């Protein structure tokens, strides 16, 4: 392989833990994303109806209603007064993501993530550095913009162009233009901006990140004292700014849990770390354990 070991993360983790363990969470995420897509397409493609509708709102096995709370918020702002199933569906979705972390939607559910992950993998592998850079906060401005436009036009305007739902709906209901949107997003993340769409611009992800603020399930750099500064986790992470306080913030009094609301709980850092620094934990395990004799932080 002609790939520079320093460009692609995970080499030492594969050597240390084996390929399967070094891709455990990545594989589980792909299975989750494809399984969710499958329950939606099994009806129209195979005649086996599991989930009807799409990610905007769905009915699973004719009993479980789920609704995207971001869409419901836009509808509310656009002036529609809700009295129906959608409220229950959105409450269930809110509750779920407030437990597991809002951006779990991005890394475990959203079909676009597969596209942008492949794009950024190739970008990293081919060592493409050029392109546009966006501020990571741009997505919150875009989120605010979508809500403002919903109010100004009294319609759920963002849904006219939202690539996330366009692609999901396009796959399920069959629209050839879906390929075009996927291609545009792919090229954007591959050639124009690293983690450009999901990591900087997407207002859907921005909305879900707000739910992460108080969510329970977190990644923790629980054995951060074992870190050998190989930087693989930073290279693998789609939101690399979230790692630093937890991994390197012991001296500043930061606990080991990644508390940033843009951590997608994708678990890629757990995969690529040869020293098994990271693990899934909860926000409640953020206390620093100090070995009082040596005045050093210790792993539990």
């Amino acid at each position, binding site marked *: 392989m002609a790939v520079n070991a320093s460009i692609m993360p995970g080499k030492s983790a594969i050597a240390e833990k084996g390929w399967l363990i070094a891709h455990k969470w990545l594989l589980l995420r792909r299975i989750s994303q494809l399984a969710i897509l499958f329950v939606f397409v099994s009806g129209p493609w195979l005649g086996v109806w599991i989930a009807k509708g799409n990610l905007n*709102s769905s009915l699973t096995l004719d009993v479980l209603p789920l609704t995207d709370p971001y869409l419901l918020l836009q509808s509310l702002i656009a002036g529609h007064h809700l*009295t*129906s199933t959608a409220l229950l*569906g959105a409450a269930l979705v809110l509750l779920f993501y407030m437990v597991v972390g809002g951006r779990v939607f991005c890394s475990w559910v959203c079909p676009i993530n597969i596209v942008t992950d492949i794009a950024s993998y190739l970008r990293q592998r081919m060592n493409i550095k050029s392109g546009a850079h966006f501020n990571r906060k*741009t997505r919150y401005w875009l989120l*605010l913009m979508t809500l403002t436009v919903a109010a100004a*036009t009294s319609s*759920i305007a963002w849904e006219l162009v939202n690539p996330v739902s366009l692609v999901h709906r396009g796959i399920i209901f069959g629209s050839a233009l879906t390929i075009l949107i996927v291609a545009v997003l792919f090229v954007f993340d591959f050639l124009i901006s690293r983690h450009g769409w999901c990591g900087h611009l997407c207002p859907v992800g921005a909305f879900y990140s707000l739910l992460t603020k108080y969510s329970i399930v977190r990644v923790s750099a629980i054995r951060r004292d074992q870190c050998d500064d190989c930087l693989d986790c930073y290279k693998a992470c789609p939101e690399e700014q979230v790692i630093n306080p937890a991994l390197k913030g012991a001296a500043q009094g930061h606990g080991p849990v990644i508390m940033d609301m843009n951590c997608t709980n994708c678990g890629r850092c757990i995969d690529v770390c040869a020293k098994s620094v990271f693990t899934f934990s909860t926000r409640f395990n953020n206390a620093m354990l100090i070995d009082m004799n040596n005045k050093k932080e210790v792993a539990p």
Partner: protein
Amino acid sequence: MTRPGSQTKVNRRRFMQDTVRTLSGVCLLGLGLSLYARKAKSLPATTLRPPGVANEADFLAACIRCGLCVRDCPYNTLKLSALDDQVATGTPYFEARGVPCEMCEDIPCVKACPTDALDKNLSNIDDARMGLAVIVDQEACLNYQGLRCDVCYRVCPRIEKAISLNVQRNPRSGKHALFIPVVHSDHCTGCGKCEYACVLDKAAIKVLPIELAKGQLGQHYRLGWEEKRKAGESLVTPDEKHEYNLPKGLKYEHEGQGLMEDSR
């Protein structure tokens, strides 16, 4: 070497530049999206919404674009608008000339809607107002030519109520009748069956959005005979005797046959 102060200044300038750049980009996108959203509100006249949509503007605020109504439509009447369709992306619609609405009694599309974009208060499908049928081309309609096509009348699920045939004299032959189809807006649901069934290459009867199809009398306007019926008597002094200045050999019966030959 840079002093700490000048470093801060450069950072502040970069921060300002960054913010202004981001904000102007976002505002431009927002403006574009707003204008596009306004355009997207103009539903093409040949496309119809499912039952339970009162008006397009409210619908676009309420429809969450999930397609559940489309899924539960047993006749594949409803379609979900794709990005390249003329209808607002992701919203349900149908075309009467394609697959008209079968007017299911249990209205599964309305039941499926999770947001009340399709009004749950609609319990009787006869109360649906998806559009209004209009004979848009009297020159082409066969019944207007004196032929007995009657297909739109026959297929109407609310035959006699929503479409009736108004018998008139055929002035071309002088001895036949014209059976003119007349649509009654207080019964027409806009299901589109008539447009679908119209035997012409291009339908002479079309279901149009109600705002487009319906005229409205001025608020102040009163129809004399209606007022007379409501009051039970004429509101103006009735004529004692009608006097007409008619050509020789004709007479006029005011309460009877109208203009007729004077056989005397």
